[in-house]
């Protein structure tokens, strides 16, 4: 089976973490972009097509939750997986309510990451498919009206 690479954006102020994590995901065949702050992440999202954002909850400046809100407002189909230190499970749950796909605890098990990433990507594909179909229906209906 040929793997279709997921387009992933990693957002964390821990540069070493971002570097190693992206190396690892790249080796797995994913297409990885990186950002070290919420602002930077939003900039990347404007120019690069992204399937899934992996987002650290605790960052200085615009924190993870604010970033999540912005992403969901501007790019509603992009899926977000939250990364958290153990203690902030509640924040993670709050994040899920705001539309995050799932969350991971640091240090995270790589197999876990892969599974969640895959599922997030799938959901995004389905979502897009649904939108396409809806648009098509709309198109057909409007052309039938003519």
């Amino acid at each position: 089976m040929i793997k279709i690479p997921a387009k992933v954006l990693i957002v964390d102020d821990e540069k070493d973490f971002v570097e190693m994590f992206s190396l690892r995901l790249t080796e797995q065949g994913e297409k990885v972009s990186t950002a070290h702050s919420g602002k930077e992440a939003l900039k990347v999202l404007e120019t690069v097509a992204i399937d899934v954002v992996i987002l650290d909850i605790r960052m200085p400046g615009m924190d993870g939750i604010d970033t999540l809100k912005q992403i969901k407002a501007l790019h509603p189909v992009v899926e977000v997986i939250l990364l958290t230190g153990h203690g902030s499970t509640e924040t993670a749950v709050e994040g899920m309510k705001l539309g995050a796909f799932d969350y991971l605890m640091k240090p995270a098990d790589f197999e876990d990451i892969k599974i969640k990433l895959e599922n997030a990507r799938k959901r995004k594909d389905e979502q897009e498919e649904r939108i396409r179909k809806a648009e098509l229906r709309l198109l057909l209906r409007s052309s039938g009206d003519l």
Partner: protein
Amino acid sequence: MNKLDDDKIRLLLVDDEEGFRSTISKRLTKRGMKPVQASDGKECLDILEKEPMDVVILDVKMPGISGIDTLKAIKQTHKKIQVILLTGNVAITDGIEGIKAGAFDYLTKPVEIDHLVNKIKQAFEMIRLEKEKQKELEYRAKLEKKMIDTDRLVSLGTMSTGIAHEINNPLAIINESAGFMKYILGTPEMLKIPRRDALMMGIGKIEKSIKRAGRITHQLLGHVKKQESTLSETDIMPLLHETLGLLEKDIKDKQIKINWEIDKKKNIVWIDPYQMRQVLMNLLNNAVHALKENGSITLTTSESNDDIILEIKDNGIGIPKENLGKIFDPFFTTKSFDEGTGLGLFVVHKIVSSLNGKIDVTSKVGKGTCFQLRLPKYDKSNK
């Protein structure tokens, strides 16, 4: 002090003049005090070695060891004994020297018997007061220690949470780096490099240690207070069942019996169920661990005016007295590192205090351990 107590005073009379001794002794006996007798300082000290005494009546002028030296010897080894000195009429300086050396008081010969009896009673009263003072001091020291301990545990709790947060980030980097190296070593081009096994072994150890460190930070952070309070009206019964369910395998393996002494109506408490589950988990886990095969755990609830009281009692190995003061400390454990982190009870204590509850423990080595939890009752009126 009444007459009845007088014969309880253990009295030793030391004088080299036999006639004087027996006269005084007779008169004291008439008044309900029966003194033991000694004829010199050496005999006096010998008796004290064998027999406990409260008050010693001591002649200053004696052949052999002098009265003052005897007094000093007594005060060195038997601090609680009170000594009344008997001095000759002209030797007031002896009396003063004696008081400096720790005598209770001195009387001049010839002795007025009622005077002596009064002095003895005063000396004994002094002993009683000192004993009480001592007891109070010990009690206060204990109380103070307990208070300090609570404070210390609270600040340790805050700090440990912070540290655990900070450690998780580098830990995640180590984790990704090790995982990356492992991945590289797994690629076809690397399969034939020399000593690949040694590298893989090293990475394996790193990964295992990351998991271990992760368990510690997880314990420390698992209970972090939520931003919005989720205190709610909670029945502890389902929580107990749920927690026992998680421990089902160990309970079955050891064939542990669970005794329920639960009062059905009395179990609604005002707590955060998520944190409470962790408290029960840690306590029950310890109990299971302390039990041998066929042991039992008894769960009891009762209530006081304000609290629901839950007891988790096991008949396992018990906790030695010298450990009882330490078990709530972070990282105190008697288990090997893969069996326990030593954080379980620390976290329990922290959660219970934050819920305005209390935890107490009683234990006997070889008999078992009982943890008693007091949790605020659910009360509609004050919510």
